């Protein structure tokens, strides 16, 4: 095996080795910080390897048999190294590394065994995410897809003693699992039609126009459902805001930068297949744009800083999906990468703030810029990037998406996305103004965190700027839209910022009054109720699933089993009744014998022969 294979395998294997080590060697895991050191060392080495793979630009595919069968394997595993995977490798290892370093300080109050558990899960997550990225086949992607879902479940429920965390963890698992049902049905159908899970073979078939399967549209739609669940698209986005119950670094890593983008990655990866079914693509685009807008409105009314960021993530994932749906997956993928950087930055920054003030509620913060200037600076950098300000990274990727959607003649989604630009700037600066400026509440002495937390922030902020500059100088974004696009989006962003400034900094506009005027009042009302979706799911779960299961349970016990018990009870009763025939008097038995003899006589005399 040459370097093109073993190096990616090594990148994949290091976190796995770390996971196995921590999972099996209990004393090491219970040591807490030592476990963290092992995990960080592994992921750091993996990061170096990933950078090497990326800089050299390996392209290679290698597969091994996983599930054997008589005529060729049913399923294979392997690694697929190409530019797409390389970029993701770097992003995943980088953010993982930074988050793991950050967590050392963020979670320093935890008991050592808990911390060890945390790092065990972190290693498992890094391994799973890398495996997903390197998947050469749908089946391997699904395997790691589920594994990252597992890590998400475990890490959301990291503080498992909290009822809300426990609820959020299972909710996240169930809702994403719902989407995964579509995924698994889709790949099963695809396999039945083509006899393979491998991208290479499928793409080759697609290229030769040999993939004329009946119901390909349905298949691709089902596969897309997996992405809907994982990447929190409408209507399965409800789990992501709740997932903020996990520790903030987890939110930064899993629920912002990496795992939730798996859906986008998958759609991008399978683009040659999706390209065959334009209807599904259009649907992806519309749903993506709608998700972006919907989530942005909910972010505007949210008061929990992490949940604002969560809705923002949903919204940005909508952008990426819209790009993929518009046939501009490159733009979507670029946004995935840049978003991974600055959203991780924002989450880690928010974590620093929460760590300092001890609350999530933005209305109970204020004036923090003076107390923690470094955090403030990097947070504002991230906010600007998210709002799409040149020359930061987010501007170019978002620009590319808008251009791609415009060029695909999808006017409706374009308008929704453009409106979302304004809303994005508004809700993010609402957070900035409320948190870092304005009047400080009296209590507490917040201060900038220790260097282990600051360093990842600065690294991410620097990368946000650098990548932006690199994009500005280079000619990376392939989609240059019409000339009015850039000014429009910058203007929209500025408008949003101005609105936020006027409302929350200057107090010129009364937020309550604004929300009460007609078109906004309806949206405000709906957004505060999360468009009723949470209620709907809860209702379905309680009112339908649990009730139905109770009905089935009742039927099982009292009808299916009841008939049986009814019969056996009657058998017992019948036996009780017949028992009295056994009087114990020998003469009564002689009657029986005599009757038997009589019967024999009757039978022998009159039985027709």
């Amino acid at each position, binding site marked *: 095996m040459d370097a093109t294979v073993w190096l990616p395998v090594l990148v994949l294997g290091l976190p796995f080795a770390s996971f196995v080590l921590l999972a099996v060697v209990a004393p090491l895991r219970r040591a807490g910080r030592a476990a963290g050191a092992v995990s960080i060392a592994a992921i750091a080495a993996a990061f170096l390897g990933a950078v090497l793979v990326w800089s050299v630009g390996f392209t290679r595919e290698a597969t091994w*048999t*996983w*599930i*054997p*069968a*008589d005529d060729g394997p*049913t*399923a294979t595993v392997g690694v697929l190294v190409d530019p797409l995977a390389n970029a993701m490798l770097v992003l995943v290892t980088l953010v993982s590394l930074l988050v793991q370093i950050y967590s050392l300080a963020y979670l320093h109050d935890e008991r050592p*065994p808990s911390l060890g558990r945390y790092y065990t899960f972190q290693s498992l997550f890094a391994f799973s995410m890398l495996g997903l990225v390197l998947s050469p086949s749908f*089946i391997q992607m*699904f*395997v*790691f897809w*589920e*594994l990252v879902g*597992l890590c998400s*479940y475990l890490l959301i*429920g990291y503080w*498992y*003693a*909290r*009822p809300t*965390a*426990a*609820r959020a*963890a*299972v909710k996240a*698992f*169930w809702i994403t*699992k*719902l989407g995964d*049902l579509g995924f*698994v*049905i889709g790949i*099963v159908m695809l*396999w*039945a039609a083509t006899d393979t899970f491998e991208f290479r073979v499928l793409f080759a078939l697609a290229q030769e126009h040999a993939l004329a399967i009946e119901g390909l549209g349905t298949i691709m739609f089902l596969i897309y459902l997996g992405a809907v669940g994982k990447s929190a698209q409408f209507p399965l986005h409800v789990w992501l805001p709740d997932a903020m119950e996990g520790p903030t670094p987890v939110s930064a890593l899993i629920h912002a930068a990496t795992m939730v983008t798996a859906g986008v990655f998958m759609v991008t990866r399978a683009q040659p297949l999706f390209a065959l079914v334009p209807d599904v693509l259009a649907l992806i685009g519309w749903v993506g744009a709608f998700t972006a807008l919907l989530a942005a409105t909910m972010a505007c009314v949210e008061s929990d800083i992490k949940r604002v960021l969560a809705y923002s993530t949903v919204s940005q994932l909508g952008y990426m999906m819209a790009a993929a749906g518009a046939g501009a997956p490159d733009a979507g993928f670029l946004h995935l990468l840049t978003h991974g950087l600055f959203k991780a930055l924002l989450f880690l920054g928010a974590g620093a703030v929460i760590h300092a003030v001890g609350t999530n509620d933005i209305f109970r913060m204020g004036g923090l810029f003076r107390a923690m200037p470094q955090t403030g600076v990097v947070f504002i950098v991230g906010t600007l990037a998210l709002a799409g300000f040149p020359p930061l990274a987010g501007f170019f990727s978002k620009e590319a998406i808008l251009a791609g959607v415009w060029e695909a003649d999808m006017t409706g989604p374009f308008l929704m996305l453009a409106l979302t630009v304004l809303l994005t700037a508004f809700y993010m600066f609402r957070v900035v103004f409320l948190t870092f400026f304005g009047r400080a509440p009296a209590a507490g002495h917040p201060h900038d965190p220790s260097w282990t937390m600051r360093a990842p922030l600065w690294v991410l902020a620097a990368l946000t700027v650098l990548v932006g500059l690199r994009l500005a100088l280079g000619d990376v974004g392939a989609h240059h839209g019409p000339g009015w696009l850039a000014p429009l989006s910058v203007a929209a962003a500025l408008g949003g910022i101005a609105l936020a400034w006027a409302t929350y900094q200057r107090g010129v506009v009364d937020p309550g009054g604004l929300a009460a005027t007609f078109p906004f009042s309806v949206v405000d009302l709906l957004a505060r109720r999360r468009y009723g979706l949470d209620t709907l799911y809860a209702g379905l779960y309680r009112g339908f*699933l*649990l009730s*139905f*299961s*109770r009905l*089935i*349970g*009742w039927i*099982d*016990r*009292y009808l*299916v*089993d*009841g*008939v*049986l*018990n*009814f019969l*056996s*009870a*009657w058998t*017992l*009763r019948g036996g009780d009744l017949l028992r009295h025939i056994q009087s114990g008097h020998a003469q009564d038995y002689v009657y029986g014998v005599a009757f038997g003899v009589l019967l024999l006589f009757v039978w022998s005399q009159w039985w027709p022969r």
Partner: protein
Amino acid sequence: MTVPVLSLITWSPFAGALLIMFTARYRPLAVRLIAVATTGVSMVGALWLYAVYDRDAAGFQFYEKVPLVPPLGISYELGVDGISLLLVLLTAVIIFAGVFASWTVTVRSQEFYALLLALVTGVFGVFVALDLFVFFLFYELAVLPMYLLIGVWGSSGEIRPRGIFAWAYRETGVGTKEYAAMKLTLYLLFGSAFILVGIFALYVNAGASSFSFVDLEGVSFAPAVQRWVFLAFYVGFGVLAGIWPLHTWSPDGHASAPTAVSMLHAGVLMKLGAYGVVRLGMGLLPSGAVELAWLMGTIACVNIVYGALSAMAQTDLKYVIAYSSVSHMGIVMLGAATLTETGLNGSVFQMFAHGVMTGLFFALVGLVYEKAHSREIGKMGGFGAVMPGIATAFTMGSLSSLGLPATAGFIAELLTFLGAWRSDHRWWLFPAVAGTFLTAVYVLRVAKQIFWGPPSPHFQHLEDARGPEWVALVLLVTVLVLFGMVPGLAIAPVDTATLPLLARIVGF
């Protein structure tokens, strides 16, 4: 002369039972050591068997034959193919773990272990016997000790009957261990009657000269015979495999049984049923199988969804696990009903995976029950903090149960799905997939309720698993993950058995 390894595996536990009864009276430690040693012999034998099994050859290997009643064509005939190989391994693993999991049985432990080991001999015997008469004898040996094991060492649940048949429930004593033992035994004997009739029907129709599976395999029976005998085998073995609506013995029986018995029963004995359908039903009656596959598959789908929903409705932990077995056995039967290579491999893999998984579950439930003295899910909470090891193992079992990749459950379900969509009844795929979601709902709900959340005030002084119990948990979890990550370990030998089987069925 070669070592009769199959006989060794089969009879070693029986020898252990005899030793325990005659030499280890009132010496609990000796009882356990003998049990460990003799099941250990079986385990080593099974591993050796697994290692040296020729994966390139089809047909039965390690063949042994000793004529018993030559005029009737009855002989002691043993052999394994890929399917039984895997199930022998499963049995060895489960009983070995089961011996450790029931280390704390204090009442009449020598009788308990003796019966348990005798039972295991029956199970091994069923998997390796190639003579239908001997097969049936082993089958009964595997079923009957269960009555005593549940009736004497079982535990009674709390069921307050309501509804239209409530009087009938009081009359029959629903919820008590005696009721459960009686119900289980009667159900299984009901099934045995069908099996016996089926076996004799085949014997007579083949000329009444041999009970040997190998001989009968060469006979092609008339279509009507095939149809009815297959139906008899399906119902007879199906009772043991928990097919709807003949499954209700399983929740009551498993809930009342002591830990090792639940492990063995749900883990292995239910597989006897599925194995019987595949080996005798599909192996001897190919056209009957083709004709009735629709019935098998449809009922399997009912099993999957119905079992999962019933499990969701339960409030007693053991009942949840027991109903999950009903649901998972649906996957086994569905895989077999697809009559495809992948489906059948999935079915056999699920027999193995579910065996280990449910064995693990019942071991854990036993531990939780032993420490918390309650099976009511609603009363428990926050156990994760005090018994992290048990919580971890339970989570692993749950994940395998809901078919999470990298556990054995996933491979089985995936293969079954693939087979289902390739079968003649594509719609089977949808209930099967829906079943995995429902499983995720009830299994995680239970895990959340018991292990997560704030610690319950009722249970302050609980402990994690201890020495011998760890052996059981670690062994089972390891097997579960190992076979999930490297499915080829199981698929390669199984394939050697499923292909000839399918060749007979589809080529018919």
